């Protein structure tokens, strides 16, 4: 299983801290799962101009190909202005319409205010569904108060990230295995 962890903001540190914890937990509990971290802060990506993703070069090609090759994807994202950041939307725009077909996607949201809780539900999930993702419905929502000195200090958040990872591996394995069984039944 090939799992990509996407830290979707180019500013701030909370999303990356949460993604680092998710990666650590993955390596600890699921050493067989191959993981790749993409922190958008590390790359220079142009805005999508509508071309096929294979036709981008450099960072953009690497980022889009890495996501396209993944079986599962954890999207970590802050909430800006009551929505997802433009950097994350750009990733969706760079990819093909059905980019998430047969991929399992989980979400970890960091936000400065509890008022943003439904943003993932109402704005992020519809995009993932449109792009044909198998969505792990329950996401982890982390607030400012859960961080202190670049650490997550709320044990409940850590428990929830652990459960999200467990769910993702379970759903990916289940979905992949059953899909392969079904495809065998087609007999071609």
């Amino acid at each position: 299983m090939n799992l990509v962890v996407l830290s979707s903001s180019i500013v701030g540190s909370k999303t990356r801290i949460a993604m680092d914890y998710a990666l650590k937990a993955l390596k600890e509990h699921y050493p067989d799962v191959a993981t790749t971290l993409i922190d958008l802060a590390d790359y220079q990506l142009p805005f999508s101009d509508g071309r096929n993703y294979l036709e981008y070069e450099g960072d953009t090609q690497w980022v889009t190909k890495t996501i396209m090759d993944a079986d599962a994807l954890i999207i970590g994202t802050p909430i800006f202005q009551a929505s997802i950041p433009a950097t994350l939307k750009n990733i969706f725009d760079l990819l093909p319409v059905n980019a998430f077909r047969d991929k399992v996607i989980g979400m970890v949201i960091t936000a400065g205010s509890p008022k943003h809780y439904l943003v993932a539900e109402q704005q992020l999930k519809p995009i993932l569904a449109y792009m044909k993702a198998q969505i792990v419905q329950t996401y982890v929502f982390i607030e400012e108060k859960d961080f202190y000195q670049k650490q997550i200090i709320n044990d409940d958040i850590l428990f929830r990230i652990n459960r999200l990872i467990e769910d993702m591996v379970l759903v990916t394995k289940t979905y992949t295995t059953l899909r392969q069984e079904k495809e065998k039944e087609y007999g071609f």
Partner: protein
Amino acid sequence: MSDSQFKPNHKLEFGIYTLGDHLPDPVTGKRISAEQRIHEIIEYAKLADQAGIDFFSVGESHQDYFATQAHAVVLGAIAQATKHIKIGSSSTIISTSDPVRVYENFATIDLISGGRAELIAGRASRIGLFNLLGYNLRDYEDLFEEKFDLLLKINAAQVIDWQGKFRPPLKHAEILPRPKNGSMLIWRAVGGTAASAIKAGYAGVPMFMAHLGGSASTFKQTIDAYRHAAEASGHDPATLPVTTAGFFFAADTGREALRELYPRINEGMKHTNGQGFPKQLFAQGTDPHSIINIGSPQQIIEKILYQHELFGNQRYIAQIDFGGMPSDKVKKNIQVIGEKILPAIRKYTQTNKKV
């Protein structure tokens, strides 16, 4: 215009098209040389001609895994190698080419072939030519509309005056040579969405519609939208031919056809588009109402006739060589088309009344 050859009650024409892809066969992992691939395409055209198939076309794609970038040159060879079959492009990227040069090439192909050439103009689904020739992707729509319009003008009159944004003006310019019959059939390539088809309708231009998968009835909406748009801008839809184009494979059984075709489509699309074809969607391909024409010859005949009744299309063209399909299997399909499928289709569509 020579498109008057297509009448509403005309029999359904059957054609074959290739994108000129140059892909490894996923079953063997081997890829033939570009030289061999081009010769095979010319050979398929000859066999199609001998089998009595109505039309053969070659596309251009300027990216990895393609071999017919110079598709007009390949069509020149086909014009010389064949006798009766109509030949065309599927499609010619007019956006990044000079319509004058394109017309000169195709008028020449028409003369070599004795008046058998047609031109299908498209916009490119990839940006290869934009990069190679230094065009701005932002002009994607404008380039196509302006150049396609110029192409139609060149076809309509030998001497033209024209001015536009992307090419120096033409002042009393005489575009030569002229096709054998003075003009040739020019189609607009449409990707299957109604939005694109409507533009072909407004312009009153024959439509070439590609379809990958899904239910035939979905594409009926696209064709209806095309005809409504044509009517709304004062054209008579009955005079505007429609070609539909998609995957085709005949075998003894539907299962066998799926087994032969699926890995080639799936792996080929991964190489050329970056995404495979979902097996679940492909499995629905043998359904009588699916747009993909795969199955036994009898199943395919029924599907093509069903689609013809639904669409009132004047021509269906089959893509049979995609994804490294071995040459012997392509040739076998051409033979099956000629011996079993064509006679049945001709028999049942002679007196079609629907448009």
